């Protein structure tokens, strides 16, 4: 009987995975745990960052929406600002091999040096596992997790859904807003927004 139940549970889980809603990340709930490898071969788990704020940033360096934030220096500045305040900033590349934005570790490290990007690490997710786990839709798509492991922001980087670098100045940055408010012990005023950008180039 117990075995039968276990089989049922596994089947149900498989069905949920197939339907793509097993652990959809939801604001206010525990952020799904993960294990992923960065561009230096180092393995990161969400659980090792318990007690810290974690930002997840989906990227595709050739997507014009992503380029807006790197060519303006906005993303690098955010990464520096928040990592200097103890935030773990994980950039995630979920483009499949052959798709735009796919990067090898060597590529990515060269790009990091050239662009002056300063995340804690870049997670290479060509299989899309982490992307699907968080249901990342666009590049950029931003998530903020609090020290208790609760997802406190899911959405766009800011309130200007354009590809124009001129729109960075004056935009309301939702990631900074969420971090500032949460660190000040306040409720996050904008906890979700429609992420804007190119679709994540998943392989499936």
């Amino acid at each position, binding site marked *: 009987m117990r075995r039968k139940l276990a089989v049922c549970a596994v089947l149900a889980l498989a069905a949920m995975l197939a339907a*793509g*809603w097993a652990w*959809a*990340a*939801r*604001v*206010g709930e525990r952020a799904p745990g993960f294990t992923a490898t960065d561009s230096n071969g180092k393995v990161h788990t969400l659980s090792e960052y318990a007690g810290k704020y974690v930002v997840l940033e989906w990227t595709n360096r*050739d*997507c*014009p*929406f992503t380029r807006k934030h790197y060519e303006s220096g906005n993303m690098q500045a955010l990464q520096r600002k928040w990592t200097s305040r103890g935030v773990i900033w994980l950039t995630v590349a979920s483009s499949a091999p052959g*798709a*735009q934005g796919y990067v090898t570790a060597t590529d990515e490290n060269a790009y990091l040096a050239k662009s002056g990007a300063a995340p804690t690490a870049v997670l290479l997710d060509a299989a899309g596992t982490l992307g*699907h786990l968080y*249901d990342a*839709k*666009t590049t950029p798509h931003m998530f903020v997790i609090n020290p208790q492991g609760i997802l406190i922001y*899911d*959405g766009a980087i800011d309130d200007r*859904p*354009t*590809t*124009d670098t001129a729109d960075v100045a004056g935009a309301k940055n939702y990631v900074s807003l969420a971090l500032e408010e949460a660190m000040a012990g306040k409720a996050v005023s904008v*906890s*979700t*927004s*429609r992420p*804007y*950008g*190119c*679709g*994540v*180039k*998943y392989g*499936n």
Partner: protein
Amino acid sequence: MIAAENSLRPGRMLWAGVLFRLDSGWHIYWQNPGDSGEPPKIRWVLPQGFQAGAVEWPRPIRLGSGSVIDYGYEGQVLLMAPLRIPAALDDSAPATIGAEVKYIVCREICIPGEAQLTLAIPAAKDSSRHFSQWRELFERTRAQWPQAAPRGWKISARSQGGNFILTMRGEAPPRDVAFFPLDANVIENSARQILASSGAGIQLTLRKSDQLSKPVATLRGVLVLDGTKAYQISVPIAPR
């Protein structure tokens, strides 16, 4: 940029629009682009006294596959708006209607674009309408606009667990129904919309967006029946 008429009739309305002709495989986006992309933005640059109304969006199609689903257009699409021509029209020279268009066009990759468009149109010499060569395209596009839902329809919506259930009675049950939400973050764009028909009507199950954190009062969007008929709906959602 094109216009439906070749001359400007003082005090009347002129339909003008931006015609997108997309190569095979490329698309632009509807007013709610879905999971990715952005709709084209048109800023009219008009002579003194002219006024532009809102852009009318033809019914969109569902684009993409897997977990990222967008709403937009492929092939050819005309985004038009009504322009109010002032009654006191300076007829000494043709008026220049301008539009600044910002758009993003995507296939596997996305390319942003910008265009400054102008069209010079002379004032009408008489009160009759002089249609342009584009008249038929304007008419065909108009036929693709979502219409108000027929009065005889009974549409209701309710919230049920992780879904919204849209119920519609009064139409011979269509074989295929697609709902395009006007608002972002209300339904999960990539979820399959499940249609159930009975003799009296249809029921469409729409999965709520994972990003939906507050209750939604109204379900707004476009219902496309059998890929051809499109209706605007705005239905209060009964809580549960």
